[in-house]
C-alpha cells in the first residue's frame, strides 16, 4: 500500500494548489491527519503553503522531483507497469469522449449553454452516466494495479450522483466536479507512468 505521506504528496501533485479541506476530501483522510503529513512534507521542502487569493497548499519543484522518483519506485515494486500502461490506453479514448460531453454540456450552437433546455441536459447526463459505467472497469483495473487509484471511483461517483440530483456545477464547474476529478485522474496516470504532457 502507498504510504500516507506519499498519498498526500501525490494528491497534491495531481490537484495543484488547494485547501486543506479539499485535500482531505480528495485523499480520503481526516483533516488533522492530512495537516500532520503536510507539515512533515513542508519541513522536507516538498510542499509549501502560500497565502493569498490563489494560494493554499502546493507542491514545490523539489517536491515534484521527489514525487516522480517515489511513484516510479512504487510502480516498480508493485510490478504492475504493464497493467497501468494498458489502463492508460483504455482511458485515453474515454477521455476524448468525456471532453466531447463536457463541451456539449457547456456550449450550444456557439454560445454558452444557458441550461434552458432540460432535455439536452438530461441527454448529456445520461451519456455521462453510460461513460462512467465504462470508465468503472478501467478504474477497477487500475485499483488492482495500484490500490490508491480506488479513491477516484469514490470521488467520481460522488460528483456524478450530485450532478444527477440537480447540482449542475458538479459536471464541470465545481473544483470537485466530475471533469476536475477526471482531469486529476488523467494527470495521475501520466505522472505515475512518467509520461510528460
Amino acid at each position, binding site marked *: 500500500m502507498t504510504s500516507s505521506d506519499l498519498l498526500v504528496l501525490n494528491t497534491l501533485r*495531481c*490537484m*495543484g*494548489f488547494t485547501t486543506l479541506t479539499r485535500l482531505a476530501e480528495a485523499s480520503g483522510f481526516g483533516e488533522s491527519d492530512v495537516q500532520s503529513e503536510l507539515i512533515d512534507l513542508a519541513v522536507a521542502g516538498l510542499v509549501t503553503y502560500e497565502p*493569498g*487569493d*490563489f*494560494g*493554499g497548499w*502546493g*507542491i514545490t519543484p523539489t517536491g515534484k522531483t521527489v514525487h516522480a522518483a517515489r511513484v516510479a519506485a512504487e510502480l516498480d515494486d508493485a510490478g504492475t507497469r504493464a497493467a497501468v500502461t494498458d489502463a492508460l490506453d483504455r482511458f485515453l*479514448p*474515454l477521455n*476524448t*469522449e468525456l*471532453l*466531447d*460531453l*463536457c*463541451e*456539449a454540456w*457547456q*456550449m*450550444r*450552437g*456557439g*454560445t*454558452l449553454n444557458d441550461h434552458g433546455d432540460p432535455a439536452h441536459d438530461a*441527454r*448529456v447526463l445520461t*451519456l455521462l452516466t*453510460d*461513460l462512467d459505467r*465504462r470508465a468503472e472497469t478501467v478504474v477497477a483495473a487500475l485499483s488492482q494495479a495500484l490500490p490508491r487509484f480506488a479513491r477516484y471511483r469514490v470521488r467520481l461517483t460522488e460528483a456524478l450522483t450530485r450532478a444527477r440530483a440537480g447540482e449542475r456545477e458538479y459536471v*464541470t*464547474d465545481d*473544483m470537485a*466536479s466530475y*471533469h*476536475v476529478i477526471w*482531469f*486529476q485522474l*488523467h*494527470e495521475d496516470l501520466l505522472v505515475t507512468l512518467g509520461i510528460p*504532457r
Partner: protein
Amino acid sequence: MRWIHPLTSGEPVEVIGGKAHGLVVLGRLGLPVPPGFVIGTDACRAYLRDGHLPEGLVEELSAALSDLPATRVSVRSGASVSMPGMMTTVLDLDTDPIGPLLNAVTEVFASWHTPRAKTYRDLHGISHDLGTAVSVQTMVHGDRDHHSGTGVAFTRDPTTGDPVPYGDVLFGRRGDAVVSGREHPRPLHDLADREPEVWAGLTHAMARVEAHYRDACYLEFTYESGRLWLLQVRPGRFTGAAAVRVATDLADDGVIAREESLLRVTEKDLQQVRTARIALPADVVARGLGACPGVATGSIATTSEAAVRMAADGPVILVRPETSPLDLRGIAAATGIVTARGGPASHAAVVARAMGKPAVVGTAGLIVAAGSIRAGDRTLTEGAVITIDGTSGDVVAGEAAVTTSLAEAHVHRLLEWADTVSGDTSERSDPQRLSAAHAVLIQRGGQEQA
C-alpha cells in the same frame, strides 16, 4: 457496380455521404477534383451487420482502381450527416497490392462504431444505422515542391460574416499538417502574392460554390506543382453575428429572398450577436480556435506561478503550451487563457468555460518559452499586453478596441424585415421579433405544401 459509385454519381447524400456529395457538386461546377470514387453507405451497413466486407466489393474496388491514373490514394470517411473528426482518414496509401486499401476501408467502416462516435450521434440525435461512405481519391501532394501547399478557406469571414475570403494556408505541406497544429499557418491571402494562379483558381471556385449553395461555404484545397485541387466543400454553417451578416448580405444581393434570410437566422444567433468581440482591424499575432466567447486584455504570463504573482498588479492572460491541473490556479488568477495545443474539447477549454474566462486554444505554431511567446516571426515577452477574442480565436498585440455591436446595422435591417412579415411593430425583444416572423413563415410554408 453495386457498392461503388463514380464521383459524377447522381446518388443522394444518404448513399454517397456528405463529403462525396460535395465532390460531385464541385465536379459538376467544373472545378478540379482529384479522380476517385466512393464506396456507398450500404457497404458499410453490410460490413457492420456481417462483420466482413460485402461480397463483390473487392472485385469492384480492383476494377475502380484500375481506372485511376496513380496508385497512391487518400481514403476518407463521409457520413450523410456531419460528424467532424469522429472517424478515420488514411492518406497516401499504396493500392498495389490491394491489401492495405482493404484494411483502410475496413478501418473506416469500423470507426462508425467507436464509443466516441456513438456518443456524438446520441448527443446530436443522429441514427446509429446510417453508416459511413468512403471516398477513395488519387493522392495530391501539397508537399511535392516549392509550388505546392494546402489549406482551408471560408468564402467569407466565419466569425464576422465579412464578404472576404478567410482561412489558413501551409506552404509545402500536405493536408494532415493543417490539423496537426504543429505548423504555423499563414493567412489565406498570402497565397495571392505567392501563387497568383492558384489564388485566381481558388477565388473562382469560391464564387462558383457560393452561387451554387446560395450561402457562405467552406473549402479544403491542396495545390501540387502550381495546380489547384479541391478536396471538400460544404455550406459554412455560421452562427451569431456572422450568420446575421451573411443572411442579410445575400438578401441585399438578391441571392436569396428576405423571407429565406429570416429563416436562416436563429434566436440563438441574435443572442450571440451581443457577445463582446475585438473590433478590427487589429494587430493579429496569432490565431487559434475560440473556446470560450468574450474578449480579455492583460499581460502575458507564461507560467501559472507568474500569473498568480502578476495578477496582484493587474489583469493577466495565461499563455501555456497546454494545461495540467497544476495550472488550475493560474487559470483562476487570469482574465483570459491561450493554449498552443488542444481543441474546444480539451481540459483547458472545459476549465476556462467553467470559470467563465475568454479562451483561445489550439493556436497553431505558437511557441511558449520561459518568459516569452513566439508566433511566426513575432516574439512577445512576459508582461507584454495582448488581447484575445474567444469567439474568433484572434490573439492581438496590445489593448484592442472591443465591440458588442459587430453586426448592428444588419441586425436592425433584418428585424425590420421580420416586422414586415409578422405585421407586428410593438415593443418586443429582438428574439421575439424574429420568432414572430418565423411563426408566420413556417405557417405560410405549411399552407403552400398543403
